[in-house]
């Protein structure tokens, strides 16, 4: 062995040792970290990037002892989650499909009570109390809503200005405007359920709150009156009248909500009764049509103080009872409810990360976020804080009642059922589920 060989061998040994050291170090560090697993629903690659860069990275930088694994499970997440929870192999963070799923999961002992974490992280002070009530079962806190949303009326402001129209404040004004639009060959309501059949319930929720009023809906949800009561008959009749008058157009079952939104932005449709999650489409479709979007609360019938903002929670966060890292899961949930995460996520991805923080004054949202969105979210937060809110069916109805409502309303629209029969079956299903304890917690008004 000459000198060169000795030197080379020495270098190899040293390099090998260094490599082994580095690799072992990495493995050891990875093993030291406590993993938090979180299954999320559908997200585009861009949206997955927001979750990675604006939630996971800042959290793990501040909490280097944790390592977060986000698994995107698509639209069938809730079904996969339920099966996984049964076998005790679910993720640490349980992302339910809404408050109506919390009670049965809590009852089955699949969720961890979060009261200690609520005290530790001061959730009781930092979050709007209504939402904490919705996550309670048997007096204990089991879930926090990921985002809350409301239904209202988007409209094409440019089209309205061109025609001298103003946003309607009453149902009479809305109907008069819709007739004017029809006469001008403009579709009154941009709407479609081709990609999401339960979109039907957005309109049922609007009708129940705008025509029957939130007080009546509250009474029905708490069992004080049946769903067959006169105010609900009037609400469903009104919704059916709009359908029969052609406000929804002939392509409702063929259009996706995105196609419908594009129709409104292009001026082929004038208004779009839908949820605040549609704010994410404003920047895509309005500028290309040189148009401006408008958003107002949905008009109400005579005698109902309006506008009413029906409250919706499409998903909640819980911690699995079987979690090996409940502290980490709770810490990540707490980070998501921070001012920093709220500001960052709402700057990048509007409409899906409106966490129910009680004080938004310290939140910094990017200047590029449309003022319309910020205004709408502020109005909604104020309405909820002042107890002036309504109820969305997907948040407050138990599963089978809600599922029937989606197809049942189609039956009324398409003449295969009557309002009376629809409401009778809705009520029978609701009362059955109420007896079984499946109605989610309804916060007192």
């Amino acid at each position: 062995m000459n000198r060169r060989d000795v030197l080379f061998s020495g270098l190899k040994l040293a390099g090998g040792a260094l490599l082994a050291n580095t690799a072992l170090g990495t493995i050891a560090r990875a093993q030291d970290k406590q993993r938090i697993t979180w299954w999320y629903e559908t997200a585009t690659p861009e949206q997955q990037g927001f979750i990675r860069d604006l939630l996971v990275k800042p959290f793990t930088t501040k909490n280097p002892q944790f390592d977060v694994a986000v698994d995107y499970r698509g639209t069938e997440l809730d079904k996969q989650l339920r099966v996984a929870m049964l076998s005790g192999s679910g993720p640490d963070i349980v992302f339910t499909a809404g408050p109506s799923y919390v009670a049965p999961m809590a009852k089955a002992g699949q969720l961890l009570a979060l009261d200690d974490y609520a005290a530790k992280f001061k959730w009781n002070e930092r979050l709007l109390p209504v939402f904490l009530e919705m996550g309670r079962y048997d007096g204990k806190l089991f879930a926090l809503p990921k985002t809350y949303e409301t239904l209202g009326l988007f409209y094409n402001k440019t089209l309205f200005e061109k025609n001298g129209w103003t946003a309607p404040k009453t149902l009479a004004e809305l109907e008069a405007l819709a007739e004017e639009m029809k006469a001008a060959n403009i579709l009154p309501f941009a709407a479609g359920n081709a990609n999401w059949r339960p979109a039907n319930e957005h309109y049922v929720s609007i009708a129940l709150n705008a025509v029957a009023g939130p007080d009546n809906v509250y009474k029905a949800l708490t069992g004080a009156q049946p769903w067959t009561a006169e105010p609900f008959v009037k609400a469903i009749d009104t919704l059916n009248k709009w359908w029969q008058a052609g406000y929804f157009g002939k392509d409702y079952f063929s259009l996706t909500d995105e196609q419908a939104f594009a129709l409104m932005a292009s001026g082929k449709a004038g208004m779009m009764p839908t949820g605040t999650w549609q704010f994410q489409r404003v920047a895509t479709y309005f500028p290309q049509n040189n148009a401006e979007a408008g958003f107002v609360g949905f008009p109400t019938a005579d005698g109902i103080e309006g506008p009413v903002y029906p409250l919706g929670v499409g998903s909640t966060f819980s911690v699995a009872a079987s979690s090996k890292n409940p502290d980490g899961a709770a810490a990540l949930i707490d980070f998501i409810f921070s001012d920093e995460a709220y500001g960052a996520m709402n700057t990048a991805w509007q409409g899906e990360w409106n966490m129910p923080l009680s004080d938004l004054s310290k939140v910094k949202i990017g200047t590029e976020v449309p003022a319309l969105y910020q205004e709408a979210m502020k109005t909604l937060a104020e309405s909820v804080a002042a107890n002036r809110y309504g109820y969305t069916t997907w948040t407050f109805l138990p599963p089978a009642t809600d599922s029937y409502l989606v197809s049942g309303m189609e039956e009324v629209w398409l003449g295969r059922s009557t309002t009376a029969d629809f409401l009778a079956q809705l009520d029978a299903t609701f009362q059955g589920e109420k007896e079984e304890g499946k109605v989610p917690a309804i916060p007192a008004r």
Partner: protein
Amino acid sequence: MHCLYLVPTLLINVVIILIPALMTISLAFFRWDGISDPVFVGLANFRALWPDRVFWTALTNNVIWTAIFLTVPIAMGLLAAAMLLVARRGSSFFQVIYFLPMVIATAITARVWQGMIYSPVSGINGLLNRFGIEVADPLTRTSTALYGIATVDLWHWWGFLCVIFFAALRQVPQEQIEAARLEGANFWQLMWYVLLPGIRPTITLMMIMTVIWSFLVFDFVYILTQGGPAFSSEVLSTLAYRSAFYDLAVGKAAAVAVVISLFGLAATAFYIRAQAKEFDR
């Protein structure tokens, strides 16, 4: 000792088929939301199906579906296969073309038809509408939704039958075909007296499998309409799925699944009998 050879397949059958089947049957007698503990309710789930009009709509739709698939694709497949046999030139090319829809994933086929053909915005229907030819999206009407879905499934399915029938027809002795031709038989006589009797076992098997598959149909219906609008295209499997995963009524879903299995069982029994007769000959 030779019995041990059966163990691997038996084990797979027990784990993958027998245990889930027994669990499904037993769940049909329980009320269960898929989350909490099941409660025994006897025959209540089956009794609840009797007055349920959606169940009867779904069952009727399955029967209509079976009738369509027992006739249209089998007739199309037989005719095309016989023509491939008679006109041998280019038969390989046409086999590939006919079979192609079968290898495309169901979800893609469904989305292509929904978005590129039926859609009044982005589809051929929309193009026709712009030229003043009014064509409605069949999936959006209660009277046509089921047939709209069946059309998509037929497009994807009939080529498969054609290839199967063509393979079977090639086994018919060439002498019989030549003899019939020498006797002056035309195409239809050749079909009726030689080819069809020659592949009868294959046709029987395909028809029985069609009955079983028709009662299991789910994918195209779920992707295209989810049983709507207004339950008009609901079939038993979408009803079971909705019951289990949307209504959280797993017991009812299991009862519907048992009904589906009964039809499959009847078809299987018929097949075994037909096969036994075939062996006896």
